[in-house]
């Protein structure tokens, strides 16, 4: 029997508008585009899974097709769920390592200097390329020494009790294992706004697991995170924030739509950080900022676009005195999480981002600003510019 709940593909009127705005179909003829890979062939796959076409692996799950669709078809969700429903499970050590970010991170931070040194060595890169199909041209994000949680417990946690209002911070893997400074800056910013920060138990939000087909594990993490976070927001006034736009997107939308989990107990209280700060500013909690003298180009990540969060980031940034902000035309950077770390997609990934890189070069900013850590890796690797998070900018403006 066909599941009658899942017939959003039937609303597709075959207008092909999604394919126009697909960043992957734009650069490669090997991807037939979201219409064909999604609603067109879903009806075939439902009848007979043998009719699965390998080309739908090219989809990066950027969700731009869903933004473009005039008929409200969940095109990217259809393609994503087909990937894990119909492809035969094959264990691939590379995909396992790329997607289990918290496992990798918790080991690597103990030997960060060593790991960073080795992953930068040409012979190691050559080996990774030849054996594991991780492109040698790709630079690896650096691991930090120790975890953000450890730092937070040691240096920040005690001071937080002094604040009457506190929020729960879902820091995610990137802050915990790669970039403590973003987490530290978040504490600076919220404390400057007279808000304390709590952390609670969390696991990887599941974005890389979903992308690599580890759906069982993704659901397990989702269940864990929902249970842990809902304990933190028993009081309806309490809030959860994240500094990763993709974590926020997963916790709010991928959990409900793709993993079919009930996240209603946290949905309304959980927000990406700039939305939270925007609301605070609107409510009058806007401490004075000092000028920053930065000329920056802002890149809006796909998942933030899908959530409709871009206007909050732009609004918050526009309030920073001295920040000269150039908004870049909204385009995918191409990395799509772990996609750009795979040899078979590396060239596509770089081509997708090509237009964005050119635009950044034309602006010649001091910095690029974006909300997503993987966009940051992609832009830092492919352009000469350093990439900051909106919270990094706010921290500078709030610093005493």
């Amino acid at each position, binding site marked *: 029997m066909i599941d009658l709940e899942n017939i959003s593909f039937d609303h597709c009127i075959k207008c*092909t*508008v999604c394919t126009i705005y697909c960043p992957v179909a734009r650069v490669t*003829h090997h991807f037939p585009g979201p219409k064909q890979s999604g609603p067109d062939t879903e009806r075939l796959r439902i009848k007979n899974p043998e009719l699965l076409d390998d080309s739908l692996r090219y989809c990066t799950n950027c969700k731009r097709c*869903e933004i473009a669709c*005039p008929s409200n078809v969940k095109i990217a969700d259809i393609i994503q769920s087909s990937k894990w429903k119909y492809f035969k499970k094959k264990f691939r050590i590379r995909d396992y390592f790329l997607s289990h970010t918290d496992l990798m991170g918790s080991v690597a931070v103990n030997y960060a200097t060593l790991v960073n040194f080795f992953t930068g060595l040409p012979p190691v890169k050559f080996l990774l390329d030849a054996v594991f199909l991780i492109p040698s041209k790709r630079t690896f994000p650096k691991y930090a020494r120790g975890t953000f949680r450890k730092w937070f417990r040691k240096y920040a946690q005690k001071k937080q009790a002094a604040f009457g209002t506190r929020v729960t911070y879902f820091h995610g893997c990137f802050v915990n294992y790669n970039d403590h400074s973003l987490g530290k800056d978040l504490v600076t910013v919220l404390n400057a706004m007279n808000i304390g920060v709590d952390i609670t138990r969390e696991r990887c939000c599941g974005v890389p697991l979903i992308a690599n087909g580890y759906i069982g594990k993704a659901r397990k993490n989702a269940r864990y995170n929902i249970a842990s976070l809902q304990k933190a927001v028993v009081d309806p006034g309490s809030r959860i924030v994240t500094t990763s736009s993709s974590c926020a997107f997963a916790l709010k939308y991928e959990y409900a739509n793709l993993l079919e989990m009930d996240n209603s107990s946290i*949905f309304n209280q959980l927000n990406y950080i700039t939305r939270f700060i925007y609301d605070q500013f609107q409510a009058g909690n806007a401490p004075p900022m000092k000028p920053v003298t930065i000329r920056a180009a802002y890149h809006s990540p796909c998942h933030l*676009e899908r959530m*409709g969060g871009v206007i909050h980031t732009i609004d918050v940034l526009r309030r920073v005195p001295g920040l000269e902000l150039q908004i870049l035309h909204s385009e995918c950077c191409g990395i799509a999480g772990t996609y750009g770390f795979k040899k078979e997609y590396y060239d596509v990934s770089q081509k997708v981002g090509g237009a964005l890189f050119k635009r950044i070069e034309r602006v010649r900013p001091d910095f690029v600003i974006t909300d997503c850590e993987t966009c940051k890796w992609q832009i830092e690797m492919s352009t000469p510019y350093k990439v900051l998070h909106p919270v990094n900018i706010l921290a500078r403006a709030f610093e005493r």
Partner: protein
Amino acid sequence: MNYDCLIVGGGFSGLTCGIRCQGAGLSTAIISAGMSALHFSSGSIDLVGYDHERKIVYRPFEYLEKFTGAAPDHPYAHCGVETVRESLFFLKDVLAAEEMEIHNNGDENHFHVTGMGTLKPTFFSQRSVFNSAISQAFARKAKIAVLNFEGYRDFYPELAITNLLNNSLFRDVEISTGKLVFPDYGDPQKNPFEYRSIDVARIFDTIQYLDEIAEQIKREAGDAEFVAMPAFIGIQNYKKHHQILQMLTGKLIYEIPALPPSILGMRLDDALKSRFAELGGVLIAGDMVKGGDFRGGLLDHVHTQNYGTARLRAKAFVLSTGSFFSGGLVSDARGIREPIFDLRVSATSPRSTWHSPQFLDRKGHPFLEFGVETNGRLNPLDAGGNPVENIFCTGALLPHYNPIREGSGGGVAVATGFHAANQIIKACG
């Protein structure tokens, strides 16, 4: 969030209104759920093409002077003919600022060729569809080659030519056909691509293929002076590449609007969005307004799918959500509704009167003339019949006009968007 003007619907009408408001210094946001009907349009802008007897209108403004007097509920009558004219030339300037050339035949309509090979009267066209060189070539009955791209499924030159030759204007014109191929693609039948206009447009957008394409055009067109192709000559680089192709081939190259996705329509969409962003407007894409709250007879705020409980406030709201196709109107067993605010709708009853028994009825279908009832300022009416003075309805959402029968869809979208903007600017200023 707080704006002077919040527009629900990012189509032709909403964008025109947004550009006018933002350009006049009002803080303006547009919320858009999916791409608009411009992606399904001819890319020419019709003002009024046919009178009530389906006869072709050659001088639209003159016609409208008389017509609007007799049809006081028509959107053009609400705007006034002078505003209609002003709005169209405002649009032409907006597009010129984006380096998009729009051509008109003075105050008269001109014709564009359709994918079926029929002729349609229209007011504005893009350079590759109408300009003086093209009209001179038509007048001298220059030889035409209609070319197609092999593997492209949405255009059948033989059909178009048969229809064209039935038209008295083309009776003694020599028309040939030919095919272009893209060698790197191999056998198109085995390719996963299904060759829609967008796929071919991407080839034309890529400069390194132009020499090869030009050679093929020369070979296939032979001694024809005039080459007609479906509109797929690029999106980002269409202007430059169209010129390069004309230079390399020494022929006039004409674009025929084809089936969706409409490349000509997308160019308009791109240019308008780019202009709106350039002026500092905020486009909220991929979100849907779910409802709003009224206070003292005025709309206070709206809320959306993505923003959940957050309120979006504005001094004035514009509803340019389109007709049935775009979801601005919905029909069910009970009747026709406007789904966001349940505004009062003009429609006939019972259901059997909504459509004509023939699919291609020359008079068009009655449901095309349904829409949200407004006063002359385009304000909708509340349950008590009083106008809601800070909501303005524009474009295909409006009743009492038939875009298909009249050939007036584009003009009404632009004129009512502009008319609403003028009043909002006055009210906010």
